[in-house]
């Protein structure tokens, strides 16, 4: 156990230093993910003119949460892993007595911390410009939201890493991620909260992983009604499923990789 803590500490501190090297890019990445802010403008405008299940203020709060959750759940492992496989850089990593995925996990976790100051700065700026949108989430809502954001990150990482493992066979695993991203964009709650979706669509969606990646934690923060038990159950279910597929693909992939010449 002490060994594991020591290893994690070293990995995290080195990768944090690595991420901080890219601070200029980090600011750009934070800004590049301001898509939810644009959606906020569209929806608050629409809410003022029409009747929706959410008020203009609730839309504003919802989308600022979407922005925040996106910042904390961004994942890029498929691009890095694909490059490692194509360029053969995975080989030396396989000769170290540790699963290469820990390098990616460490870089993803530390990137969140490196990005955090800019994200918070933007949030503060937002509430200064739009003070009536400020609110204090309930304590239980906050705790639950933090837990589900962590779970959402784990699930999204696992899903993308599972696609990444296809790089052992296709060398273009990123194409899979791009198709998936299209669904993610529309169904996760990034462009509209699930509340405005037709009832039938919503009933199907709650069994898919999509709404739990953004809509679910955002609703917990804003205080929109969600089925917490079902939500966490579905998230855990998909996590276990992708974990199993992931490990199976990893073993098969390594066999294939070594068969094709590593």
């Amino acid at each position, binding site marked *: 156990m002490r060994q594991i803590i020591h290893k994690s500490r070293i990995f995290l501190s080195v990768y944090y230093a690595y991420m901080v090297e890219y601070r200029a890019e980090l600011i750009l990445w934070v800004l590049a993910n301001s898509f939810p802010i644009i959606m906020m403008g569209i929806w608050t405008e629409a809410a003022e003119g029409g009747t929706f299940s959410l008020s203009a203020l609730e839309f504003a709060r919802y989308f600022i949460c979407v922005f925040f959750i996106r910042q904390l759940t961004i994942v890029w492992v498929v691009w890095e892993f694909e490059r490692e496989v194509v360029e053969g850089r995975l080989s030396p990593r396989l000769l170290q007595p540790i699963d290469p995925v820990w390098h990616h996990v460490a870089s993803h976790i530390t990137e969140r911390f490196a990005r955090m100051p800019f994200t918070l700065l933007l949030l503060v700026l937002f509430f200064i410009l739009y003070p009536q949108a400020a609110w204090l989430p309930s304590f239980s809502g906050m705790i639950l939201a933090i837990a589900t954001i962590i779970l959402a990150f784990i699930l999204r990482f696992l899903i993308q890493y599972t696609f990444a493992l296809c790089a052992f066979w296709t060398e273009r695993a990123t194409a899979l991620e791009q198709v998936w991203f299209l669904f993610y964009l529309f169904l996760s709650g990034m462009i509209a909260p699930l509340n405005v979706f037709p009832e039938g669509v919503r009933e199907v969606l709650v069994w898919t992983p999509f709404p739990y990646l953004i809509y679910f934690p955002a609703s917990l923060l804003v205080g929109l009604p969600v089925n917490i038990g079902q939500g966490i159950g579905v998230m855990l279910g998909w996590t276990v499923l992708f974990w199993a597929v992931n490990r199976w693909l990893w073993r098969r992939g390594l066999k294939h990789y070594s*068969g094709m010449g*590593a």
Partner: protein
Amino acid sequence: MAIIIAEHLTKVYPVAIKAPGLRGTLSHLFKRQYRQVEAVKDVSFEIQPGEMVGFLGPNGAGKTTTLKMLTGLIHPSSGTLQVADALPFRRERAFLEKITLVMGQKQQLLWDLPALDSLRINAAVYGIDDREFQRRVGELTDMLSLADKLTQPVRKLSLGERMKAELLAALLHQPKVLFLDEPTLGLDVNAQVSVREFLHSYNQHFDATILLTSHYMADITALCDRVLLIHQGQLIYDGALDALLDRFAPYRQVQLELERPVLAADLARYGEVKSLVGREVHLIIHREELTRSISALLSALPVLDLTITDPPIEEIIGRVFSDGVVL
């Protein structure tokens, strides 16, 4: 007992084949056809602990494939293999802690951070405690003359310094068996010499076994008494380097710069004239004749400059093939 035992190693790869043109592309898209390529054929050898062995062969001969089988990155299609008392392809922790593979151009260190940070990661991976880490880094830094370089970002290092830092990272866990694929590729002469000296002292210091591929003959002559020669996947020579050179490269290349042009006929008596351009002469002289020919040539011709070099390894291997298989 041998530390590396390879018996009848064979590796066959499927390689996709595609006919040219649109038709070929379409049929490639829907129904791929594969051709089986034998990258390594029935290779057997043993290496004793502490030996330094050169692994030679032209590009595509099967060197890297063999190294990858020895390290466990790829499975042999047939044959048996034992390295450091383990089956490499299982990649068990105890085995991985005893070996290392350095591939010349494959970057392991984190590019934008000082090498020391990447080394800390390696220390954590191999479970080396802080005090031991400091000691080993100090020791290897001295051997590699890398002082103060480890705190600079890797991207700011010269190619030679970077290669040395890569070596340091690959050797931090003090492996007993080193597989080095072109460790001096692209380095200038000084850097090549210092990497060579380091490998020599590492071998002496840790009684490590080293199997090394290189395109530079000087690497092999400086470090290895024994060489394995591989061509088209087959091991065609396993033995002393001297015997190989005597047999297949019993000559030296001599480059001359003369004060004034000389007739080719006047040069021919000292050796085979390979080229003669103005005052620049390139001669091939038999090793046994070398001393006599050079002193005769120096006293008879107006020589300004003279360089003697080994023939390139590719040329020697070419000769091995034109003379037939030797094993």
